[in-house]
């Protein structure tokens, strides 16, 4: 049931095909100055002053060929919409493992619930209705973003990378909903990718 919802949410949000790699906080680690960590009341906290070296984010599309099976849609750099159109990948992952990981993450992501905006008072019911309608649209948008953010973080923490894919290819990959698509998506996830199109989780 939960998986059905995940697939539905993913497709309806234009967010189908997920993948990600953990919290890789190391990406874009800022080259900040080390603050004075002397704590007047405390012993020195166990935090040292060395930041991780920067590893750059959105990796440019490269010319290197992509290893893929003929029955799967080709991947392509997502460019503008790689926050929506992507898939998850982990070399050689078993289908059962992918389905379990995806299901685990989807159960958490499916429960996101963005905070409600405060109501704007208007004595006119028509404007109240319009305001509520637009607020509802924005809240739905917010919920989809939260869903994707949790999926990306979760799959990333489970060791999956995230790669861009064109919208049409993504729709093809997810065609038929979760029950039909899970084998395809898992097979796509398991393929090794040799180019440098990996996205920041």
């Amino acid at each position, binding site marked *: *049931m*939960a*998986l059905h919802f995940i697939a539905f949410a993913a497709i309806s949000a234009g967010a189908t095909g997920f993948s990600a790699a*953990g*919290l890789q*906080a*190391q*990406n*874009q*680690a*800022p080259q*900040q100055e080390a*603050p*004075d*960590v*002397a*704590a*007047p*009341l*405390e*012993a020195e*906290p*166990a*935090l*040292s002053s*060395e*930041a*991780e070296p920067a590893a750059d*984010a*959105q990796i440019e599309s490269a010319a290197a060929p992509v290893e893929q099976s003929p029955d799967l849609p080709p991947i392509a750099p997502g460019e503008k919409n*790689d*926050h929506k159109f992507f898939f998850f990948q982990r070399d050689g992952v078993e289908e059962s*493992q992918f389905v*379990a990981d995806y*299901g*685990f993450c989807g*159960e*958490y*992501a499916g*429960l*996101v*619930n*963005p905070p409600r905006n405060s109501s704007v008072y208007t004595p006119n*019911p028509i404007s*109240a209705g319009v305001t509520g309608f*637009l607020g509802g649209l*924005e809240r739905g948008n917010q919920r989809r*973003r*939260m869903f*994707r*953010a949790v999926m*990306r*973080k*979760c799959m990333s*923490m*489970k*060791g999956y990378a995230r790669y861009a894919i064109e919208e049409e290819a993504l729709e093809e990959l997810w065609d038929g909903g979760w029950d039909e698509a899970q084998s395809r998506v898992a097979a796509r996830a398991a393929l090794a990718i040799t180019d440098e199109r990996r*996205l*920041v*989780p």
Partner: protein
Amino acid sequence: MMARNNLLVAVLACLGLGAAVLPIESVEAQSRAKAYEDDEIPTEVEDGRALLWFRLAKHSDHRWGMDVDIGLGVLIGNVRSSRTKERIPLDKPLWPAVQIAAWDPDANEFLGEGESPRRLRRSQTRSFYIPRKDFFFEDENYRHYLVAVSTGNYVLGGTPNTCFCWGTKWFEVSAGQVINMGIYYVATENGLSYWPELAAFDSADDLAEQNMVADTMRLTPPSSDDTVPSALSNFELTSVEYQDAAYFPNRFGRLVNMMIPDDWEPGQALTLPPSDVDAEPDESL
């Protein structure tokens, strides 16, 4: 048409009036927790209650620069922005907030939620945030809070935008105790933490631009070497004993993350173990 509109407005007004006369409990009464400021520190612990001494480390004192692109989307409040690499100092540092919630360790759930069969007593502290402003002592890097709660078990639930559903700590509180809770270092994963090791946690630009960046937290447990503020010198302090909490549902619908584990090494990414392939979907989620 006009009459129908007026009728609708009247009904809405009545509903509003109805809401206005309902008894509204204060935050303090609702949460059954009380944070003391410097001029309110009690001399003794109330019956059936305990005092928790928290220290929260400074969150950040910079922000990223933003390029804002005002297009037609502004008409529906959808303004596009992009993060720049410029670090802009803040006039005042940011301080975190941490949620503490009543916990049922047997059910691995918030007390009274989901699989937890227990009911909250009327006097039971439920869920509260260590309030950013109600501290009793502040120095350059830390704020000290003293919060009175009822006895029971509590969990470090998360921050206002993040549930630590994938790994956190819980602890037990007994009557009459004054407990040293250690130091909490909360870091938003945007590379801006005041603490360099935590500043290594960053997120993709698109998540930062959409405000979809989760928080994480590192805990420094209490130590016998901790210097106790003079306001607490009359109390005999007990060190908290944290225990690991397993995964629990995202009850508050927030972003999800985990606390930084005790054995974490700087530079190490946070990870989750592979899911059990034979597990049935958790219907409680």
